[in-house]
């Protein structure tokens, strides 16, 4: 996993996601079924295409795109790809590269903040906990007031427990995170 910024993107994607993007024949079925494609600056089939070219400009465009952060992970593209590729895994690999190289698109940063808040919640409580998740997301995204109006009602119905639930196996969960970090550094 020691892919420098100059390494071929197709190779990096193959190593990280196990997908050979050069097999894509651009039928567009991924784009056709994608519920998020309308919000993307690059359609899923275009993401696959730009990952094939080996052009440094295309690599930059992909890693700085909003599209890779829009993916909801529903896997419709992967399910229906006639060439049995996994576009969702390709997008995941691109997100990792984008983050590592500090190229996350400005609008994508909020989505990244959500992912990071989710992972932080899992790391510390062993599960998805609403208050840490929302709190960290608001802190990191800077969007303090989003959806704030629903908070009182949710509090009243016990949907926002102020003391987060924790699971027994937190130590093991934390060890998984540490192992991942060690692997990333190596």
């Amino acid at each position, binding site marked *: 996993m020691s892919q420098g910024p100059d390494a071929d993107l197709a190779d990096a994607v193959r190593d990280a996601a196990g997908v050979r993007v050069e097999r894509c024949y651009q039928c*567009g079925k991924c784009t056709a079924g994608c519920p998020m494609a309308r919000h993307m600056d690059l359609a899923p*089939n275009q993401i696959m295409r730009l990952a094939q070219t080996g052009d440094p400009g295309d690599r930059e465009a992909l890693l700085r795109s909003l599209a890779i952060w829009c993916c909801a992970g529903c896997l419709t593209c992967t399910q229906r790809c006639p060439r049995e590729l996994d576009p969702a895994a390709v997008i995941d690999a691109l997100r990792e590269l984008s983050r590592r190289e500090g190229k996350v698109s400005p609008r994508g940063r909020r989505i990244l903040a959500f992912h990071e808040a989710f992972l932080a919640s899992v790391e510390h409580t062993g599960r998805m906990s609403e208050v840490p998740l929302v709190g960290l997301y608001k802190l990191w995204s800077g969007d303090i007031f989003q959806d704030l109006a629903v908070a009182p009602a949710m509090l009243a119905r016990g949907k926002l427990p102020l003391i987060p639930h924790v699971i027994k196996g937190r130590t093991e969960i934390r060890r998984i995170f540490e192992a991942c970090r060690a692997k990333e550094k190596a």
Partner: protein
Amino acid sequence: MSRLGVFVCHCGENIGRTVDCAAVAAAAARFPGVVHSVDYKYMCSDPGQSMIKKAIADLKLTGVVVAACSPRMHERTFRSAAAQAGLNPYLLEMANVREHCSWVHADRAAATAKAVELVRLMVEKTRRDRALRPVRVPVEPTAMVVGGGIAGIQAALDIAAGGKKVVLVESGPSIGGHMARLSETFPTLDCSQCILTPRMVEAASHPNIRLMTYAEVAAVEGFVGNFEVTVRRKARFVDPDKCTGCGDCWNRCPQKRIPSEFDAGLGARRAIYVPFPQAVPNKPVIDAERCTMLKQGKCGLCAKVCPRGAVDFKDRDRLEKVKVGAVVLATGFELWDHASYGEYGGGRLADVIDGFAFERLASASGPTGGAIKRPSDGAEPKTVVFIQCCGSRDEKKGLPYCSKICCMYTAKHAMLYRHKVHDGEATVFYMDIRATGKGYEEFVRRAIDNDGARYVRGRVSRVYRRQDGRLVVKGADTLAGRPVTVLADMVVLADAVRPRRGSERLAQLFGVGYDQHGFYSEAHPKLRPVETAAAGVFLAGACQAPKDIPDAVAQASAAAAKTLGLFSQPQLEREPVIARVNRNLCSHCRSCVHTCPYGAVKDFEVKDRAGSVLKVVAEVNEGLCQGCGTCVAVCRSHCIDLDGFTDEQIHAQIAALEAA
């Protein structure tokens, strides 16, 4: 004393790249019996063959080993060169250093060493070769064509025009095949029936053609020039000699709602029926599965109304043996069933239809009289979406190949729809347009430029039915880079072309190869496109690969030419690789008689001069023996040997390998 010549071919770069051919030739020069050993760039070329011929004449060679490609490729080439130089052709052998060596190895030193060994083995064999004479067998100058679609009809007509007899076997009640179901044909839009039905009539009335409809091949015996094919003539329950085709029976049959296969289920037929009004022969059959008389013994109305007494409920399948010299397989195709395409409705949406259903809707003789009406409610669809590559080029569905005809017929469908529904919208989702025939590209452009078909480049992800009944087509426009949603009244799927069900079983009967999809294998993809690995069995039409009408007709004529070429010789020469029995050693255990897959071994009575039987032994019929060697392997007294592959030769090869 053997005087052998060894000729090592580079095959351009094919062998020379991996094998040091000069070193192989030098090593072979030292093998026992070898008096001449050379290498050359292209041994099969004219100068290469001349080298062999000259060496045979000048050095009085008694045997030749050519180290080159597979004997399947060029054994005949080199053996005929040897014969021209006066050497018995069966004294020339080939060592396969291409398929068995250079093509499958990368290491040059190891490949060269292996090539030397392959040549050594073949030298040992050739030293023990005996001159053989080809076996001559008579030819039955009658052809069988299996399949009565346009390819089968064309092949039959061409063979018949060449003056030879043809038996045309068709599994359905009528000849005509899929072409009879088509509305109009690309790229000229002439009416399919108008160009086909005269040919059907010609085939039926030609004095050299015998039609066997409602019949299937049940068993095959024999070999090229002398096949004996057992045909199962399915029970029609109607005597075709008495029947005049008046139609009284099918007009009165009370079973009125049986979906018509010919109309892709959009129309209905009776239990006693002809598939379509222009059927040849225009004589009905009774569908035993649907007839209440045959199932429950009730009704019998057709028999009562028939003025000629032609209906016979006691009719049974009959087997008939036919002797033929050559066979043309023209079993055609069927459409892949999109029921396994869940994302396009899985066959459960009435208004998602296949190409044949659209053909029947657009056909003047179809269930709607040529009006485009959707199946669910009979309304005229105002928006039709055509989806190409449904199944084709989809590895996930196990069909990685291109079906070839869909680009063209979809353009035709869009065109016909726009001609019939002027205010209708036709949208075509495609991945690539493959319009590579004469006038084909112009035809597709016409559909787009003149007839206003909207072409969108992208595959469709999903088709589903909305609450209001409209079909939602979720596709992509990959050129614009965005998803596209189209609301449609009807969707036409260009389902993949696949071989007809049961084609594998037929291939096995005739000893013809087929690929993983069931398409029949030609003997060589470029140079022998209509022959098969089974001598005397030829291919025509879509049973070999997806084909449109012009391609199928062209191949059918080619198969007919091959058949006529075969029949132009009064006798055939066959390879003399024949098993021989040593009568003195045979103990008449009959193991060989039971195991011979070709029924070529029979009992033979050895008699004295007075005619009394001294003993019974096994004897091989030269005409039937295929040289497989099974009898040699099972013979307990080791009294059977195979000409050209004697035990002595094989043991010498093994011994040479062990010594090396």
